[in-house]
């Protein structure tokens, strides 16, 4: 079917083409005439009005930062909040004599000139968007700038919301810090220069929700750049609020108890997997980043040999020491290679493989049954039964309890840990020395865990085998009250042991604390704490100086109805019983304050 319009003869066809092209020409010519009409209207009829606007009325556009969403603890207390702060910005296009202005500013506020020029070098010289130079200016500095405003064209002080923390280092690793977007992060195209974004911890995880949306203002300014009139304001949309599982009271207690020592504390609810507190020391000041963009401080922090940025609760791995003996006991009992009635005479040494293996206690513990061996953490007992239970079974149970794998917590950079076994070693073409079995049986050797893994493992002992996904976030609520995200407790794995064995594990751990075991320092009248101490040598075969061992205490309470798991690890702290257990005790006292107080008043124990 021919769709062309009828067009006479072949000769006439050329005419038809020309006619149609002529029609198009007229159409286009008409459009050009309309355009000229619009130009006549703009330039001649309305010209003087626009000329006026261009001379007097300069419209400046200024972004208005959205307040970041607030993080709450499980009881509705704020973990982090916002407060207004003064931000010093430069508008490149309005700095007529750039060098003079920068020099003045540099002297006035004691900001290195290089820092100013560097900040400006990253944006086009004619940009109208303010470049942030310093955040959280002191009132004194604000006054200085405002006073000499006329000499500082292009310099503006804006009020922006900034993070405020209960204390500088409070829950630093959990919350994470907020910092101006880096050049690298800008490449994705999601951020604008000067945006403050969460860089670690929950601030990073929830950044999309917390960030909100910036608003803006159209401001009329005079020839000197001074605001004359606010023309229009689009309100920023604040970020969403987050309800975490953290208990601010417990978090504070844990930090107070650690008193700045290097190490980590994890407090978890064994009934739900909720993380109630998570600390890592040494901590860094969160406000270092929110305030001034001081590069030197940042460099110092990165190069700090104590690695304050490292979240030791999940990004660092340590040998678990004797805490691991609970796994060995579980493996032996369930496999039938170990019996609660088994006895060993411990004289302080154990000869195996042409070498003498020492107990931690010189002279030994004497006659030991299984419960006693757990309570006194007798190494000789575990050397002997470790061999009987076998390294494969131990490794299998260790993995069943979640060691050697990530816990699935929603924080980045979680370490795997390491559970060595002869089979795994063979796969990688290496040999398992039988002596290693002895090392593993007491939680040493190649074995590596994170404090968070130990907390989850302890929670499994307390709750009868459930391995939770450690939960940090309960829900995210948008400013209008709708819920953007919720998370319920999630059981990831289940360890199957006979109920008698679970009961034995719990009761022997209670013995560690309450019946004169190694964890006696964690004993609290009125509260039955169950726990296991650990003293982990840093490197098995190094000349480990005294005090370099990592002190562990993995515990839960009340022993009969576990509600809280507390795991304490003090890096290089020394003995678990004398260093870590008292810290756990302090934390329990804070958690069960009322209960403990009532018990004391009632004169129950002393």
């Amino acid at each position: 079917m021919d769709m062309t319009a009828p067009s006479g003869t072949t000769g006439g066809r050329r005419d038809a083409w020309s006619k149609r092209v002529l029609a198009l020409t007229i159409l286009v010519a008409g459009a050009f005439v309309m355009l000229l009409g619009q130009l006549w209207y703009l330039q001649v009829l309305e010209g003087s009005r626009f000329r006026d606007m261009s001379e007097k009325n300069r419209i400046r556009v200024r972004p208005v930062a959205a307040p970041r969403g607030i993080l709450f603890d499980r009881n509705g207390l704020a973990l982090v909040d916002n407060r207004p702060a003064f931000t010093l910005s430069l508008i490149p296009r309005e700095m007529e004599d750039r060098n003079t202005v920068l020099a003045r500013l540099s002297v006035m506020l004691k900001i290195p000139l290089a820092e100013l020029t560097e900040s400006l070098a990253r944006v086009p010289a004619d940009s109208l968007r303010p470049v942030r130079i310093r955040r959280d200016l002191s009132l004194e500095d604000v006054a200085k700038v405002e006073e000499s405003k006329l000499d500082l064209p292009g310099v503006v002080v804006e009020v922006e919301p900034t993070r405020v923390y209960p204390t500088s280092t409070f829950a630093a690793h959990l919350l994470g810090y907020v910092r101006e977007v880096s050049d690298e992060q800008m490449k994705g195209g999601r951020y604008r220069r000067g945006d403050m974004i969460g860089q670690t911890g929950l601030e990073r995880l929830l950044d999309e929700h917390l960030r909100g949306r910036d608003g803006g203002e159209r401001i009329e300014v005079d020839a000197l750049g001074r605001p004359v009139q606010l023309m229009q304001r689009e309100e920023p949309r604040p970020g969403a609020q987050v309800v975490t599982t953290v208990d601010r009271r417990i978090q504070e207690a844990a930090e107070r108890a650690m008193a700045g020592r290097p190490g980590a504390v994890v407090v978890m609810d064994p009934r739900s997997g909720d993380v109630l507190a998570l600390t890592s020391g040494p901590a860094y000041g969160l406000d270092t980043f929110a305030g001034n963009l001081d590069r030197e401080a940042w460099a110092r922090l990165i190069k700090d040999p104590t690695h304050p940025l490292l979240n030791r609760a999940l990004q660092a791995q340590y040998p678990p020491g004797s805490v691991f003996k609970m796994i060995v006991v579980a493996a032996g009992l369930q496999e039938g290679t170990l019996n609660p009635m088994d006895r060993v005479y411990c004289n302080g040494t154990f000869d195996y493989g042409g070498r003498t293996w020492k107990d931690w206690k010189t002279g030994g513990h004497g006659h030991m049954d299984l419960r006693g061996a757990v309570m006194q953490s007798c190494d000789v007992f575990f050397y002997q039964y470790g061999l009987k239970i076998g390294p494969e079974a131990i490794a299998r149970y260790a993995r069943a309890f979640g060691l050697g794998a990530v816990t699935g917590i929603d924080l980045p950079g979680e370490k795997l840990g390491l559970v060595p076994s002869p089979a795994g070693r063979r796969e990688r073409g290496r040999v398992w020395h039988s002596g290693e079995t002895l090392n593993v049986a007491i939680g040493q050797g190649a074995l590596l865990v994170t404090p968070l893994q130990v907390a989850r493992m302890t929670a499994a002992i307390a709750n009868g085998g459930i391995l939770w996904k450690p939960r940090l976030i309960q829900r995210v609520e948008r400013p209008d009250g709708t819920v953007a995200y919720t998370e319920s407790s999630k059981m990831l794995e289940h360890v199957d042991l006979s109920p008698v064995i679970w009961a034995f594990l719990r009761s022997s751990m209670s013995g560690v604390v309450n019946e004169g075991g190694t964890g006696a320092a964690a004993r609290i009248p009125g509260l039955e704490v169950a726990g296991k101490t650990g003293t982990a040598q840093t490197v098995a075969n190094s000349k480990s100086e005294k005090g370099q061992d990592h002190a562990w205490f993995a515990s839960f309470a009340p022993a009969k109805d576990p509600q809280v798991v507390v795991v304490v690890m003090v890096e290089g702290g020394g003995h678990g019983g004398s260093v870590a257990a008292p810290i756990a005790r302090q934390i329990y006292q804070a958690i069960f304050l009322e209960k403990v107080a009532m018990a004391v008043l009632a004169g129950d124990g002393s």
Partner: protein
Amino acid sequence: MILRIDRRLLQNVDWPLIVSVMVLLSLSFISLWSLSTTGSIAWRQLSWVGVGTVALLVVIALDYRNLVRAAPFFYVVGLGLLLTVFVLGRTVSGARRWIHLGPFTFQPSELFKLIFVLTLAWALTSRWGRPLSRATLVWTGILVGVPFFLVVRQPDLGTALVLLPVLAAVFIGLGMRLKIFAGIILAGVALMPVFWLALKEYQRERLLVYIDPFRDPLGTAYNVIQAKIAIGSGQLLGKGVSGATQSRLAFLPERHTDFIFAVFAEMWGFAGCLVLIMAYGLLVLRGFEIAAGTREPQGRIVALGVTALFATQTLINLGMVTGLLPVVGIPLPFMSYGGSSMVVSLMALGLLLSVRMRQFQ
């Protein structure tokens, strides 16, 4: 074969076209020069004019009929380049339109405009394209639809919008019945909601802002308002280079590229604009005249397509800058700063000249 120079070819060089483009290039140079203190942008643009002129001569020497014959090949290569953008492309303000070539970036969708015209000429004069039937429409639709989709996805709404009027002009020129043409337009309107869904968030926002400029006082509306102030304040005779505060104090966004007309209008006023519009008018009217006077079917479509391309780009850009149309990113041919656009525009001019020079062969 390629470089055989026929005396008649040289006799038929079309001076009105060349003069109008030379005028536009000079105006572009002056505008870019007055925008920067060092003039480096103007010089860089001039070097692109040099590159483009060489490309133009090559296009003329190759004979448009050879190029149309090779159109399927160009089409495949062009599609390949558009796809490459998704893999290697560099993101500029949320859109992937550029490919890195050493120190240069190159925008395949610009080049595709030319390939599009050549492909149309090839398809509509091929065995399968005549007479213009329903089947032709369907498969031309597919031929056009695929790259159109890719360009929209980049997302480069501007280039996509330019291709449609070019297609329409060629169809009208070939004598498609108005009823059918109207039907297609109606179908297009009916498909608008689908199109709306395919748009990126920021593109929707732009269209909404056109309806209600104060939806976004910080972004697009700001651009339009500032452009209007710049143009209007030029008044009858302009403010000159030094008085052009809107442009020089950078109230005007994207003033080297899409909004360069506003710079020119502020500096030279209505009088200057009249010269500029006349240059574009001369270019386009002369293009149509060449198309009308061509008898060879492929030459007709090439000449008409290229002219429609110039007319569409010019009108959409000027309409956008003067506030008559929504803001879509389309450069002003021969004026806006940008290598790809300049070289491609000059190559398009080459095609038009080439058709004109071979009209009487």
